[in-house]
């Protein structure tokens, strides 16, 4: 059984009070409680404040490029689908630069668990608007306010029939921890959008702002009702739901790829003799 000490990583370089700290703590606690050891999973992250996440705990890590977490995670998962593969991205990372990959990861239903640290701002590059920034928010780079409509990742994911769609809040620790566990235990692709207050650059969506608005989705809510889920996903304003918005049980991509039905690709034996005997037969087809 791992302990929190086993998960102690590098010293974080996030600003004091950053919403990433509670996410890191919830993540570590959830993994310890699920009895998952650091060597048993891989985190693929991108670039942004969230990209540093895997360095601040202990795990196999591929800290790749901005926006490209999901393709790397998809390739790794297909190579070894017995390994838990977690993708960590930010709102700019996943909904901006990597938007196309999100759409197609959802379509594939690859068994990757995606956690988006959504602070509704660009932190690493110091305060420009992100796809989830609210309209009219003024930044140094958006002097007339944000003119594009705010992206709603939950509605987008429900529209694409994403097999697990949830939202958490860094300021609601136990709830977030539970959500992380539920997402990890879901067999298909999971998207968890986590409100992560940026105390330095986002003066609109503060801890107070979120705390006043978020509410736990009702116990009697049926997350398998897609139409109801779409309605839930559209809620924004004075009351914003957190919890599992939508889930379904459609088959995962790994389940549907016949060549890995028995063994993962990494476990399939490759020998020159085996290959040559197949090649001799294959080359005959060219005659």
């Amino acid at each position, binding site marked *: 059984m791992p302990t929190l000490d086993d998960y102690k990583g590098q010293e974080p370089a996030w600003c004091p009070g950053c919403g990433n700290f509670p996410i890191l703590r919830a993540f570590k606690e959830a993994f310890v409680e699920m009895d998952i050891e650091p060597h048993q999973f891989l985190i693929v992250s991108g670039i942004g404040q969230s990209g540093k996440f895997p360095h601040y705990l202990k795990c196999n*890590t*591929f800290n790749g490029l901005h926006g*490209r977490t999901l393709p790397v995670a998809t*390739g790794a998962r297909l190579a070894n689908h017995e390994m838990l593969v977690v993708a960590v991205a930010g709102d700019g990372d996943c909904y901006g630069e990597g938007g196309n990959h999100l759409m197609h990861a959802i379509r594939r239903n690859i068994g990757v668990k995606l956690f988006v640290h959504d602070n509704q701002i660009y932190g690493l590059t110091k305060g420009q608007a992100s796809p989830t920034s609210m309209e009219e928010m003024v930044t140094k780079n958006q002097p007339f306010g944000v003119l594009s409509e705010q992206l709603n990742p939950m509605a987008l994911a429900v529209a694409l029939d994403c097999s697990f769609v949830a939202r958490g809040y860094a300021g609601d620790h136990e709830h977030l921890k539970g959500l992380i566990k539920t997402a990890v235990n879901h067999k298909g692709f999971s998207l968890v959008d986590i409100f992560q207050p940026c105390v330095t650059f986002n003066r609109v969506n503060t801890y107070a702002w979120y705390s006043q608005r978020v509410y736990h989705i009702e116990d009697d809510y049926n997350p398998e009702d897609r139409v109801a889920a779409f309605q839930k996903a559209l809620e924004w304003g004075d009351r914003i739901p957190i919890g599992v918005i939508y889930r379904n049980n459609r088959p995962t991509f790994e389940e549907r790829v016949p060549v890995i039905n028995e063994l993962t690709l*990494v476990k399939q034996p490759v020998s*020159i003799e085996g*290959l040559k005997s197949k090649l001799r037969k294959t*080359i005959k087809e060219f005659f």
Partner: protein
Amino acid sequence: MSRVRGGHNFYQMRVSDKEISASRGPVDILVALDSDSISSHSKELSAIGVVVYDSAALKEKHDGSQFFDVPLLDLALKNGGDKIMVNTVATGTVLGMLGLGTDIFLDILREILGKKGEAVLSANANAARAGHEFAGRECLRCEFSTPAIGTKKMLIGINEAVGLGALASGCKFYSAYPMTPSTGIMLYIASKAKEFEVIVEQAEDEIAAINMALGASFAGIRAMTGTSGGGFALMVEGLSLAAMTETPIVIALAQRPGPATGLPTRTEQGDLLFALHAGHGEFPRVIFAPGTPEQAFLLTNKAFDLAQKYQIPVFILIDQYLSDSQWTYDGFNLNKLTLTDWRATESELEGVKDYKRHFLTDHGISPFARPGTSRHLVVTDSDEHDEDGHLIEDAATRVQMVDKRLFRKMPLIRSEITPPVFYGNSRPDIILTGWGSTYGIMKEAVNILSETTKVAMLHFSEIFPFPSSQELDYLEILGKANMTIIVEQNASSQFARLMKTETGFEFTGKINRYDGRPFLVEELLGEISAYIG
């Protein structure tokens, strides 16, 4: 040209009992299924050339003994029952003109059409025989002599050969986005996915394609991607990621004329310096440019070996001409294949207490464990990192890591590179030099010119790191020749520029072609004789 809906298109075939490696200009038999074929190609007829056409179907009559009017449509309808069999009749006709039998053709029809049922097959067989008989009876001008049919040969194109080379190397993952002329590699591997247990994933774009392959490679299997110029432009960011994270990857880059969409279904060798310089930052890479399917098969195998051994990106540079031509062989020598698993095995890792993904070694290569298969953590970063794989900012570590990736590995990689092929006269006055797809055409030119001149060819298929001259002193050979001509299918002699940078050598003459068409034998000879005078 990509004419999915039909329209004027052509395919050229050359038959010989001697080894041939390129296309020639004069056409002996032109089968014209449309009027454009006559107007565009009849000027290419040889002295004994014949145009096969159907005056009734094309509604045009040509006089002259070089025109052989064959009622292709009528024979197809009467013997096959469907106008779609015009091509079957035409093939039968050509066999009749050449004095060859129809047995092999009928076997091929069975192979291709067998699954459509006996009715379709026998209709086609009748159509073939009708064309064959008509030619035997009516072609007065047919004086072709054909050699006896030899043993069966292998017929293979370069995309299939690259695909086969990947399978032969234990490639387990191929992700790509369809793009002419590289798509054939993906299609071939996909057709063998079940048998060789490979995942072939059509990615949403080329960016995803290279990143997926890198994810799969990092996780522990051999992975590859393939594309053409524009698609590779999108992959460049991922190339740099492969370099920084020291993740092995093989990239097939099938060139076509650019810039931008360019001439999508034509040929060019315009991306050598792009492949060489692509990616931000400084890092090692290997570039192979096979000139034949056989070279492609073996070089793809070598590409996988070097990629994994040195944890670097390796390119297979081909082009549309190679992608769309087919070569015959007696077979491929499987004994030349190599397969070594360069990843750190579980037993190698057993004694390791504190595993570091980017551990500094004398040779620059760090043991590469498979994440999730041992208790060791495998950590890497696109940021500059320390030996553990964690991101750093300090100057000393940065210098150590650049030295490791670039300066320690590079001499070792260079020692793996084999010298160019030297073919022809051993003390030549004239040397043709080229790389990649010009292998065949230069060889034919050397064979012909050898009757009157002391001529040779130097063909480079392992281009970067530039081969050393220790094993074959090509610089001395070039230095002793009176005339050295570089032949390239691009406008700016990219290889000549690379060679000057690497060796200081300058060719005395340059032949460039950048109209998107491959050289025909006569055309190259013409260009060379302009130099020889």
